[in-house]
């Protein structure tokens, strides 16, 4: 199984050990031709404003929308911002792949970043966004501090936290995503 990671910018490499622990292969996805043969796509953490510029630069906006119809996507932090229906604080463009709004940097700045256990697995929230106005088809898989942090809708999912930075492989979230793919 080949799992793509959108490698425009951000936290790509730390996914490798989790993906390989599942017996799958990580494929870096930047250009339209990289989408062939992947059976799922992780939109990783990083800076969503930078990623938007680079989606434009590599001309893959339409390809991203097209493949979202075919294969599961997992948006992490900045990736969840790209997948949202609407983005606030500030407003910016998004792919609209899941029925939810995302408010950027809601927990504050880096000094407010924190670690938490979700499903007894340690994860990091780094300048994390907030998921809001969830649509009817959205299912909340985990919450923390009263806010949804892991949400699925159909074949797609988003997490506002980073399991890829933790050392124990594979993370339960990578495992869950791989199960969604197969």
């Amino acid at each position, binding site marked *: 199984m080949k799992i793509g990671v959108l490698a425009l910018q*951000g936290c790509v490499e730390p996914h490798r050990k989790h993906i390989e622990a599942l017996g799958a292969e990580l494929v870096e996805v930047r250009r339209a031709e990289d989408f062939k043969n992947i059976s799922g796509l992780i939109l990783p953490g990083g*800076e969503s404003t930078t990623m938007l510029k680079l989606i434009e630069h590599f001309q893959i906006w339409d390809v991203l929308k097209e493949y979202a119809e075919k294969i599961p996507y997992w948006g992490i932090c900045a990736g969840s911002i790209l997948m949202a229906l609407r983005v606030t604080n500030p407003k910016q463009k998004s792919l609209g792949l899941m029925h939810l709004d995302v408010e950027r940097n809601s927990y504050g700045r880096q000094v407010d970043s924190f670690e938490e256990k979700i499903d007894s697995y340690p994860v990091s929230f780094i300048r994390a966004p907030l998921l809001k106005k969830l649509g009817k088809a959205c299912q909340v898989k985990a919450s923390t501090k009263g806010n949804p942090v892991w949400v699925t809708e159909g074949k797609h999912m988003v997490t506002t936290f980073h399991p890829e930075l933790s050392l124990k492989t594979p993370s339960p979230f990578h495992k869950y995503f791989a199960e969604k793919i197969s």
Partner: protein
Amino acid sequence: MGLRKKTKKTAQTIKKATKKANIVPTLAPKPTFELKVGLAQMLKGGVIMDVVNAEQAKIAEQAGAVAVMALERVPSDIRKEGGVARMSPPELVEKIMSSVSIPVMAKCRIGHFAEAQILEALGVDFIDESEVLTPADDEYHIYKHSFKVPFVCGCKNLGEALRRIGEGAALIRTKGEPGTGNVVEAVRHLRQIAQDIKRVRMLDESELMTEAKNLGAPFELLMKVKKLGKLPVPNFAAGGVATPADAALCMQLGAETVFVGSGIFKSESPEKFAKAIVKAVAGFDRPEEVLAASRNLDAAMRGLEIKTLPQEELMAERGW
């Protein structure tokens, strides 16, 4: 009793002082080192740009910068004007912080932990304990583990990198000669670290302690480097990057992100340069894409031949 009274009084004084400076002490637990390195991971594959005001910060964000470095003067002006270069005024950093949604970094002087405390209280996302500013301590660096905010530090070789990581730096960058528009020193440092790591990988465990002694590196971190085959934190390039080609060169030599100081806002068309360097970093492994990014740019910043600089003006020599 006396001691207790004194402590109470001290606490009140601190409370008063922090209230005056508009500092809100937070009660959140100190983050782990991994959480600090986490933010550095998020900044990989990007460009971090020096900016001196909110307008420049917005131009940088619009061009696709992953973060900005808030400064009072870019390094080339610091070099020109001379005098003691200190932390930027809080109002300036604050204005830049409120004008963009991307992370904001700021510099403090080497060893000046009080400047670092102020920057942390201000809420910057990363502190650069930087040789670009005049060092405040000519023997010691800041103990960075005692801060909540992550630090980036410059280095010229593996020993220096591991000393800074030992002190708590969550991100390492080269110490290319700032404000010169000359990439030669950054290249030297990238190559030096890569060569040092190659050597460490070849040595066996019994040889590592002597290597640690020779490099002036903490032994445990050297063991880690041997195991990982790379630094235990991300490694970025900084100093002298002036063109898309410079950025692509650093990335191909193993840098994971590029800091651009004077190179953007001292060029003739900052907006074009900012966008071009972002594109060159994103497509660094494809010459045709770096070529496309290099087209139709106006003049790059004027560079300086480093050999013409007097020894005492070399900023890379700062750091111990």
